[in-house]
């Protein structure tokens, strides 16, 4: 029997085995040397985000592009695409304006100063009229008003923002709202409310706030005046006699205190338990109403000067009633319940 075929088969087997060993070794070395697509993508995303923070916008866009190529269907590819779109759209005016905007956006609390904002505002005037300028105008206006509390500067900034070409409706409404609120801060409530209504913003919570403030401007002083007038007239007509110790003791009997506590304290407790959003209003309303009623009933026993003057008696009763209404209004206003009610009514009427 010949051994040649056996020898050839053996050589073939050994060669195949050697090839296998070399191939596995090579591929494992390749696998160890190169990270998976997803790992590489994550690394590129980290580099791109660092580039963004350092305002190297072109670098960031390039790195995000590489991240997409590394694993185009992976989860992080979506983030890369979103950032490329965002950065690309805002780089149209050049990388400089975008870098300046990003620098301002990243300021830590306390780093925004009047000087810094004014310098940026001046810089923005030199930006080309593209998206990044509109967004910069927004940042400037909102910073003047909401962060540095300078309504006059804010008014000028909102007006510049409103004058930007290509402003969409949402931005226009935000700028109009800001302008109206800034003007209201300087005292012109009527014009501000009017502007907001004409802009179709009449049902916004901010408009409701201004409307409540407009009413409160005359209603609060009037309320205090009514209460003061009632107390003063009662005292002047002899009500002070009712404030003697013996009469006070009679007025503040345990029975009356118990009824008063039930009538006035119970609503507060119930509100706290079941309607916490009305609790503050109750907390103001209950003692104020109770106090006024107590005062009225105590002073009433001493109103000798009004005994034979029905007109005066009617006046005091009317003032007393109006004072109770005034107490109610003040409680609703100072607890912000009045604003909440107006906002809720408008929400329900939508």
């Amino acid at each position, binding site marked *: 029997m010949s051994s040649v075929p056996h020898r050839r088969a053996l050589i073939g087997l050994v060669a195949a085995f050697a090839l296998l060993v070399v191939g596995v070794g090579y591929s494992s070395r390749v696998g160890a040397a190169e990270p998976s697509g*997803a*790992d590489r993508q*994550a690394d590129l*995303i*980290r580099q791109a985000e660092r580039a963004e923070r350092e305002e190297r916008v072109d670098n960031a866009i390039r790195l995000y592009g590489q991240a997409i190529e590394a694993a185009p*269907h*992976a*989860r*992080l*590819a*979506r*983030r890369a*695409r*979103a*950032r490329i*779109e*965002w950065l690309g759209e805002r780089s149209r005016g050049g990388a400089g304006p975008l870098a300046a905007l990003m620098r*301002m*956006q*990243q*300021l*830590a*609390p306390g780093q925004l100063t009047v000087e810094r904002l004014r310098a940026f505002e001046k810089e923005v005037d030199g930006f080309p009229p593209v998206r990044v300028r509109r*967004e910069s105008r*927004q*940042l400037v206006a*909102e*910073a003047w008003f*909401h962060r540095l509390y300078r309504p006059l500067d804010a008014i000028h900034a909102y007006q510049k923002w409103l004058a930007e070409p290509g402003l*969409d*409706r*949402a*931005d226009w*409404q*935000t700028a109009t709202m800001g302008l109206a609120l800034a003007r209201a801060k300087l005292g012109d409530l009527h014009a501000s409310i009017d502007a907001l209504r004409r802009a179709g913003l009449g049902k*916004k*919570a*901010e408009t*409701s*706030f201004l409307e409540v403030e407009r009413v409160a401007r005359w209603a609060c002083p009037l309320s205090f005046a009514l209460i003061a007038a009632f107390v003063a007239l009662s005292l002047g007509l002899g009500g002070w006699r009712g404030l003697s110790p013996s009469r006070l003791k009679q007025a503040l009997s345990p029975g009356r205190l118990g009824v008063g506590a039930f009538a006035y304290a119970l609503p507060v407790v119930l509100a706290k338990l079941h309607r*916490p*959003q009305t609790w503050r209003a109750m907390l103001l309303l209950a003692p104020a109403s109770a106090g006024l009623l107590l005062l009225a009933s105590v002073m009433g026993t001493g109103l000798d000067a009004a005994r034979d003057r029905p007109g005066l008696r009617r006046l005091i009763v009317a003032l007393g009633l109006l004072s109770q209404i005034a107490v109610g209004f003040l409680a609703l206003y100072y607890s*912000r319940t009045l*604003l909440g009610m107006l*906002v*809720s009514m*408008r*929400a*329900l009427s*939508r």
Partner: protein
Amino acid sequence: MRLAWLLALAPAIGLPWLWLGCGGGSAGSTGSGGSPSSPLSSYQPKGCSYSVTLPDGLDDPSMGSSGTGADPAPVHVHVSWAGDPASSFAVNWKTGQDTKLTELVYGTDRSAVDAADGAGSGVTLQAGHTFIFGSPLFPTQKARIHEVHVCGVDAGTTYYYKVGGPGHWSAVYDVATGPKPGAAPPFRFAVLGDSRDDPTAFAAIEQKLVSEAPDFQIFTGDAVHTGVNQTDWDAFFEASSGTFHAQDAMARIPFMPVNGNHENLVINYFAQFALPGTMSQGEVADSEGEEWYSFNYANAHFVMLDEQPTGSALDAETQWLANDLAKVDRNRTPWLFAVHHKPTYTASNHSPDLDARKAWQPIYDQYKVDFVLNGHNHVYERSLPIRGFQPGTQDGALAQADSNGAPVNGSGTIYLVAGGAGAPLYGTGTAYYTAHTEKTRNYAIFDIDGTTLKYRALRPDGSAIESFIYTK
């Protein structure tokens, strides 16, 4: 002979009718197909390891079918998770009441999905269920909702999908599944809440989120002003800011909410979101397990709570919370987040929820929860790290913090109030535990990369309220 022939033929004729009557032809379900005489109550979506249970009191609950009516176009499309974010997603949408098409096609090739009218090469069809619901307080506001659950998809992958049915498809959206649980690649999520009265403001923030591309968004409650008023929900889902529509974000960024006092656990809330739903003791019946729930994403665990229960229901929820956190493997998921609507530490308009603080803070402290995310107060407010209570009080004790007020080596829990996505803003206050507060519309972005967390709180104009880095 003829009789024998007829007898042999009968099953061949009758079987298809029997099959159709039992809900066959549906591409994605096991379980009863639902019919007027036996409405659909629960089923297991094809490929999913969980079942979907429908609340009682719905009209016409059934698996989708081919009927269309006057308004077949899908609207209010939004995506969430009812199962594992690494291998599933769920989509809800609304149509006219007479439209029962409830299909979803998906794949990894956008153009293939765009062209598809059903299952095909690289495109999978999944069917779901549909129902009509409405509140008795607003009897004319009935809405038809559709819901499809997709399971068994690959982790860390972008899928394209559209919903509706042949001839009446939505636009094509993309959604990405999460990384494998326990994996630690970078991920990002957003936190916002209290959109309520201003859908335009909400849409403006959603537009910002599109450019940030978070992997999901946590919503801290109070999406609408009046939970039973479907008009409010319509305004929420149809929110727009200029030419941008919030749906374009909500259909792509999974939306994971908690119940707020304005949702108030009404059917409108549970019917319109698909959330993890394993019924546990104490949850209201209509919730079908969605009142409180938890999920993992990459190396983070999220517990989504409802602080409204009292008495035995609160006790049951507290027990559930303790059991849930006890099962968390901190080696795989080192990051822990708790979410509920009313804050337990706040110095703004509404007082802190002391009942929730008393019930839950000991558990947060025991399991070293990293962040508690809240809404309810319409401000931005962040606490210093808190761990434990001051002796003899129910006031939190301050823990070690760095110069930015961030914890040091897990020293304490940060309590965040992010309630500025549209509701009227409140004034701010400060307490001994306040790190930063501002009266502004706001949202927060969390970037987690392994054991490093980068936090940014942002205003709608893109400027930073504050930011810090926290490494465990």
